[in-house]
C-alpha cells in the first residue's frame, strides 16, 4: 500500500502553469414547482451540488459519470446557459457566474460549446454557411463580404468540402454534421471549449475521427477543453485530467494515471470495472466486475452524508452522518471518500474522521482538533494527505 502515494506523486502530467477556468463550489438547484395555479416551489433538484475544478490552458479536463449526475448541467453553467444558484466561475480571473446578458456578450467569444446531438444542434432551415457564419455576424468580427471566406476556411479546417457552404444540415451525415458544429464553435476562436458528449451520438467508427479532429484543433489553436462524456475510453484518450461525478458532486479528480490505474473511490472503481478490457479477454483471465446495485438516488432528496453510500460496498456508519470532503491524496489526485484506497485495500478506519473532528462513527469528537482538509477548493495544493502513513505529504 505504501507505493500508492509514491506512484501517484511520480506520475504527474506535464505541468500547465496558466489556469483558464477555475470553478469554485458551483451549485445548480432547479426548483420543483407544485401543480395548481400558485405553483409554489415544493423542492429542489440538486443537479450540481458544489463542484470545484480547474482547467489549465491548452489541456482537457474530462467530466465523467452516469446519466443524471450533473455533468451536462456543469457544462451548461460554464457556458452560462444556466445561471448557477451559487458558486464562482472564474474565467481568466473574472467571475462570470453572475454576469448579465450584456456583460456576458464579450465572454461568449471566449467560451464556446460543442453539443451532443448534431441533428438538433444545427438549425434545419439554415445553410451550413449561415450556421457557421452566424457567430461572425453576431459579433461583427469580419466585414460582411469576408464572411464567406472565413466560413470556407473553417469548413476546410474541420475537414469538409468548402464548396458545401450552401448546403443544408440534412444533406450531411452525422459525423459531418458534428464537424459543422465544431466549425461553428471554432469560428470565434475561443479559449475554452465545452464539449458536451461530442461523440456519443455518433457511430463508433466516426467517434475516433471526431476525437482526433478535436485533438488536432486543440494542438493547433491551444484550446482548453471541458470534455463531458460517459465513455471512459474516450476520456482516457483525450483528457490528461479527469473528474468523476456522482449525484452532483465530484467524487474523485486527478490526472489520467491516478484515476485509471490508482482509483481510490469505490464508485470510480466500479465504473472502471465496467469497461471491457481487450487485453484481459485475450489472456483469457476474468477480471473482477463490481456491480452497483440499484439506481442513482433522486437528486431532489439525496442521501445524507456521502451521496454514494446507498450503493457502496464499503459504506460504514460514518458515511451516513458525515459528508466526506474532497481530500487531496496525491500531487494531482483528490478523492471524496472516508475510506479511500485501491480496490480491496480500503482502510478499516475512516481516514477523514480526525481531520473533520469526529469519531469513527461520525459523532462529534470533543477530543479531536479539526484540521484544515487539504484539497478543498479548485486546483491542487503543494501538500497533501499521505494515505500511507496518515500524515501530510508533499512533492
Amino acid at each position, binding site marked *: 500500500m505504501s507505493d500508492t502515494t509514491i506512484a501517484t506523486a511520480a506520475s504527474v502530467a506535464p505541468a500547465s502553469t496558466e489556469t483558464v477556468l477555475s470553478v469554485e463550489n458551483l451549485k445548480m438547484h432547479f426548483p420543483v414547482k407544485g401543480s395548481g395555479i400558485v405553483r409554489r416551489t415544493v423542492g429542489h433538484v440538486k443537479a450540481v451540488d458544489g463542484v470545484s475544478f480547474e482547467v489549465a490552458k491548452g489541456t482537457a479536463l474530462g467530466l465523467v459519470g452516469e446519466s443524471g449526475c450533473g455533468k451536462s448541467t456543469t457544462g451548461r453553467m460554464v457556458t452560462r446557459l444556466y445561471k448557477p444558484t451559487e458558486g464562482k466561475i472564474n474565467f481568466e480571473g473574472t467571475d462570470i457566474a453572475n454576469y448579465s446578458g450584456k456583460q456576458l456578450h464579450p465572454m461568449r467569444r471566449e467560451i464556446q460549446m460543442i453539443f*451532443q446531438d448534431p441533428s438538433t444542434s*444545427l438549425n434545419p432551415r439554415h445553410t451550413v454557411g449561415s450556421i457557421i457564419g452566424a457567430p461572425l455576424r453576431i459579433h461583427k468580427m469580419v466585414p460582411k463580404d469576408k464572411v464567406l471566406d472565413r466560413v470556407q476556411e473553417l469548413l476546410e479546417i474541420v*475537414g469538409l468540402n468548402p464548396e458545401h457552404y450552401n448546403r443544408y444540415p440534412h444533406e450531411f451525415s452525422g459525423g459531418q454534421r458534428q464537424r459543422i458544429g465544431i466549425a461553428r464553435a471554432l469560428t470565434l476562436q475561443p479559449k475554452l471549449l465545452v464539449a458536451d458528449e461530442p461523440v456519443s451520438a455518433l457511430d463508433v467508427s466516426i467517434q475516433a475521427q471526431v476525437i482526433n479532429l478535436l485533438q488536432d484543433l486543440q494542438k493547433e489553436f491551444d484550446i482548453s477543453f471541458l470534455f463531458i462524456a460517459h465513455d471512459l475510453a474516450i476520456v482516457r484518450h483525450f483528457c490528461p485530467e479527469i473528474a468523476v461525478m456522482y449525484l452532483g458532486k465530484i467524487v474523485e479528480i486527478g490526472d489520467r494515471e491516478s484515476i485509471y490505474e490508482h482509483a481510490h473511490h469505490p464508485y470510480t472503481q466500479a465504473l472502471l470495472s465496467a469497461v471491457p478490457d481487450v487485453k484481459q479477454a485475450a489472456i483469457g483471465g476474468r477480471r473482477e466486475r463490481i456491480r452497483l446495485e440499484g439506481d442513482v438516488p433522486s437528486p431532489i432528496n439525496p442521501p445524507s452524508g456521502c451521496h454514494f453510500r446507498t450503493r457502496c460496498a464499503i459504506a460504514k456508519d460514518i458515511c451516513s452522518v458525515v459528508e466526506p470532503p474532497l481530500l487531496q491524496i496525491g500531487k494531482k489526485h483528490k478523492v471524496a471518500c472516508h475510506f479511500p484506497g485501491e480496490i480491496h485495500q480500503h482502510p478499516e478506519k475512516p481516514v477523514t474522521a480526525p481531520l473533520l473532528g469526529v469519531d469513527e462513527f461520525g459523532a462529534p469528537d470533543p477530543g479531536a482538533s479539526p484540521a484544515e482538509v487539504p484539497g478543498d477548493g479548485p486546483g491542487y495544493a503543494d501538500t497533501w494527505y499521505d494515505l500511507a502513513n496518515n500524515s501530510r505529504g508533499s512533492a
Partner: protein
Amino acid sequence: MSESATVFEGEELSGGSTPPSAPGEAKAIAGKSPMKLAMMRLRKDKPTMVSLTVVILVVVAAVLAPLLVKMGVLDPFSYNQNLLDANTIPEGGWSGASGAHPLGVEPGTGRDAMSRFWYGITFSLMIALTAAMLSVIIGAVVGIIAGFSGGWVDAILSRFTDLTLSFPSTLMLLALSSLGLKLVQQVTGLPNGPLAQGIYCTVVLAIFGWTSTARVVRGQVLSIKQREFVEAAVVLGASKPRIYFKEILPNLWAPLLVLVTLMMPAYISAEAALSYLQVSVKPPTPTLGNVLADSLKYAQVDPFYFFMPAILIATIVISFNLLGDGLRDALDPKGDR
C-alpha cells in the same frame, strides 16, 4: 484548380485531420432547402396537385368575378321573370339552362344562376381567407409569446385561450349580430351593406378562431425552444429577436401554412352556415351560404338548382382540405432524409 483532384462526398473516410482535396468541380453545388424538398415531394403527390389546381382555379375565379360583373359578363342581380313559368319555376329542364344562362336561372327571381354562384365564391373566399389569416396571425403571436415567455405569461395566455375556446361563438354571433354590425359601421364608417356585414363576419370568425393556432404554435415553440440549436445561438451570444425571428420562426412556417390551408375550408363552411342563418352578408348579395339557402326551397321542383351550390361548396372545401393534408405530409420534417 486541378482537374484530377477528386471530391469525396463522404469526407468521413479521409480521416479527421487531413483537409479535403481541392474541389475540382467547377459547377456550383447548390443545397436544396427544406422548402424545395417539400415542393419536390408535393409534385409527386397526385391528389394534392389536383386539389391545388382546383384551389388555384377557385381563387382565380374569385378574383375575376367582380371584374366580370363590372364588365357585364356576369349579372347576378337582374331579374329575368320572362324565363319563369306561372309557378316561378324556370321553363325547360336543368333550371332552364341555355346559352345565355349556362347553369340556368334562379327559381322565383330568374337571376342568372352561374353569376350568383361565381360571384358568391368571391365573397365567401374573401371572408374565409381574411378570417384565416387574422386567426393565424393572432394565434401565432399569442402562441409565440406564451411559448417563449413561459411562467405566468404563459399561464395567463393559455387560460385566456381556453376561455375563448369555451365561448359559445355561434350563439354570440347570432345574439350580437345587430350590435356588432352597428359597431363595425361606426368604426369603419361604412354604410350597412355587404362590406360591413362581411367585415363583421370576418372579425367574429377570427376572434373565435385563433385558439387552435395559438395552441399549436405554443407547443411547437416549446419543443423548438428545447432544441440544441437555440441553445447554440444563446452560447454564440445571439440577441433575443435574432433567436425568435432567425432561429425559431423559420421552423414555424410549415405548421402555419398548413394551419391556414386547413382553416380555409372550415371558414368557408362556417361562413356558409352563417349566411344561411342571415348573420353574415345578407341577400341579395350572393355568397355560397346565401345561394345555398335560396336553393333549399326548390329541392323538389328544381333539383338541378338545388344540388349545384351544395356540390360547389363541397368541391371547394374538399380541395382545400386535401391541399392542407398534402402540405402537411410534404412539410413534415420526418419526411426529410
